[in-house]
């Protein structure tokens, strides 16, 4: 068993900040790395040390394996925490860490290699006797094979890249007439995004829920189940909102679910924190999807419910220590929800937005945790993903958590970029959401951009505010300037008059 003194975080944004916090609590020196546009990013300000690793594009910095490893060696890091994304599930990187004598905080390269390939993971789940969505036994080699497999499995179906992940490389096919086009698009995407054109077929489940099991496994073979998370609220196959417990679970289902997840982890010889993803059909059957061999974005909901610090557990495990709670069952309390606050415009197809954060005032008060990666004045770089913050709430029951989330969203002040706070307000106010009737089709089925149109009261307030602002400007220019010194008018009317009325996007 070692004890880390210096840990390098090979990541940026809110997750790098998250890891720095736990390192500080554990008295471990936190070492940030940063790309050129990230010189004044929050993780650089908050870390004990920070080192430049290259220009903006990820491939030149956060995804430049040699630079990251060389930096870690030079600054004498004992271990590297990869966060999520970037190198988190990269077996080659984990191997390179080992070769450089640095501990990779995550499962070994063999585990991530085995579980990172979706087909290999399916083989493992099959061997463990865990139910899977019916599908092709392996990759489908040609369009003809795909047609044959599709007929056996039935439409609608999903085409999935074996190396896919993060919502990329998957496509729904409703009928045979769409198969040919989908086949070539998915293969092309898989080839270009992952360098691996292998594609397989799964039956599409109608109105499925996305549910996942948080597990922790230590070196002595303990595998603990820390509760499920429901992550059905998605757009473009990417999660927007998560909660624990799942409103669809009861105790018997939870017990079967925990058992299945732990069986897979044990079979894989898993080590560290991981997530076993499943889909749940409306009849209550669940099917294995994949294993994410890393900390998830949504891990805080599990932390709120269990009181554990998952990053601290990851570090303990990587140091060779047993789970902090040993063989005890970890009781979960109440209900936790997470809203991903993203720089995107839900009124315009969730298109990403960039810009400068002009003003922030984050929600506080009982049961609220807001993990932000940005601060006032911060300019969002174009190179990285658009997650600005994670708003997490906890309350004694689901309706309490929902009301608290709505209250915290009402408090959220974040100006300068488009963001999805109003979308989340819509979501948690929706009667179907309140009733817990979720599916991954929720957004498609229920959301229309017009739902976010400002109501009559809001419009009227905007009208008054504009008029009052204009009134102040006019009163200002009609008053004689102080000392008679300043003669330039601050009145901007003529400029604003130059073009026609701008319509709202």
């Amino acid at each position: 068993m070692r004890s880390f003194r210096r840990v390098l975080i090979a990541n940026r944004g809110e997750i790098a900040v998250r890891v720095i916090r736990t390192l500080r609590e554990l008295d471990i020196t936190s070492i940030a790395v940063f790309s050129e546009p990230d010189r004044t990013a929050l993780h650089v300000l908050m870390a004990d040390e920070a080192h430049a690793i290259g220009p903006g594009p990820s491939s030149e910095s956060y995804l430049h394996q040699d630079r990251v490893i060389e930096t870690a060696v030079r600054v004498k890091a004992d271990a590297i925490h990869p966060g999520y994304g970037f190198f988190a599930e990269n077996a080659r990187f984990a191997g390179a860490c080992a070769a450089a004598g640095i501990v990779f905080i995550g499962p070994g390269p063999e585990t991530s290699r085995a579980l990172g390939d979706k087909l290999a993971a399916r083989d493992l789940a099959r061997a463990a006797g865990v139910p899977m969505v019916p599908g092709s036994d392996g990759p489908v080699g040609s369009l003809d094979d795909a047609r044959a497999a599709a007929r056996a499995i039935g439409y609608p179906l999903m085409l999935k890249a074996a190396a896919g992940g993060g919502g990329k490389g998957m496509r729904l096919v409703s009928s045979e007439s769409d198969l040919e086009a989908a086949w070539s698009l998915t293969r092309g995407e898989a080839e270009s995004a992952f360098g691996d054109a292998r594609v397989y077929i799964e039956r599409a489940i109608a109105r499925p829920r996305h549910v996942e099991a948080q597990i922790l496994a230590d070196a002595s073979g303990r595998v603990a189940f820390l509760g499920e998370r429901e992550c059905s609220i998605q757009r473009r196959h990417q999660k927007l909102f998560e909660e624990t417990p799942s409103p669809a679970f009861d105790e018997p289902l939870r017990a079967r679910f925990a058992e299945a997840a732990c069986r897979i982890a044990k079979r894989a010889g898993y080590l560290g924190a991981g997530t076993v993803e499943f889909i749940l059909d409306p009849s209550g059957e669940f099917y294995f999807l994949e294993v994410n061999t890393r900390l998830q974005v949504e891990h805080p909901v599990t932390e709120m419910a269990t009181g554990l610090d998952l990053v601290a557990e990851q570090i303990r495990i990587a140091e060779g220590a047993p789970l902090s709670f040993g063989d005890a069952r970890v009781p979960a309390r109440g209900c936790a929800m997470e809203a991903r606050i993203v720089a995107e415009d839900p009124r315009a197809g969730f298109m990403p937005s960039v810009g400068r954060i002009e003003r922030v005032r984050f929600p506080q008060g009982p049961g609220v945790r807001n993990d932000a990666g940005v601060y006032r004045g911060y300019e969002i770089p174009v190179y990285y993903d658009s997650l600005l913050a994670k708003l997490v709430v906890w309350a004694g029951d689901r309706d309490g958590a929902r009301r608290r989330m709505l209250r915290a969203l009402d408090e959220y002040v974040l100006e300068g970029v488009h963001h999805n706070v109003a979308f989340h307000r819509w979501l948690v106010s929706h009667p179907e959401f309140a009733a817990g009737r979720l599916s991954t089709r929720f957004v498609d089925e229920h959301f229309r951009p017009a739902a976010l149109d400002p109501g009559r009261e809001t419009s009227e307030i905007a009208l008054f505010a504009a008029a009052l602002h204009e009134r102040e400007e006019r009163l200002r220019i009609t008053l004689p300037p102080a000392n008679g010194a300043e003669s330039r008018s601050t009145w901007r009317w003529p400029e604003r008059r130059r073009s026609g009325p701008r319509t709202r996007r």
Partner: protein
Amino acid sequence: MKLWVMLEGRDAEVEFHTEGERLVVEIEGRRLDADFRRLPDGEVYSLLVNGRSHEVRVSPGGAALDVTVRGATIPVEVRHPLEKVLQATRSLAGAGFDEVVAAPMPGMIVAIKVKAGDLVARGQAVAVIEAMKMQNELVARHGGIVSELLVREREAVRSGQALMRLKPVTA
């Protein structure tokens, strides 16, 4: 003081009176108490209307003022009431302006889906921009005939940069 205020789908005349320390706003026959105070925290105001508390951001945004209330940004134009008459006259003259498709954010143009001379329908995708690792289609708001392409594929663009110009098709 009297102002003419327009926002999408609505326009109204607003009149202000001061009565002692009170500021009264008159709109569409209603009289409301208003108190408008700048916060020390930016282009932001606290607005009390008959006691209801609102935090609003007012910033110049192109042709209008951008007012942000509860996360929604609403462009509002404020003019002299006289202009209402002028505008009415202009509207009668009809449209006939070029449409410019502009980049909504900084990024790279990964595809241009039309060429000069093409007829583009309202809402048709004309280009694809990549930013923040995501690709997004840009659509023509009104449509028309592509009269000029101003960028090429693989070109980096700034936010607001004009990408192409469309000429309206006269009916």
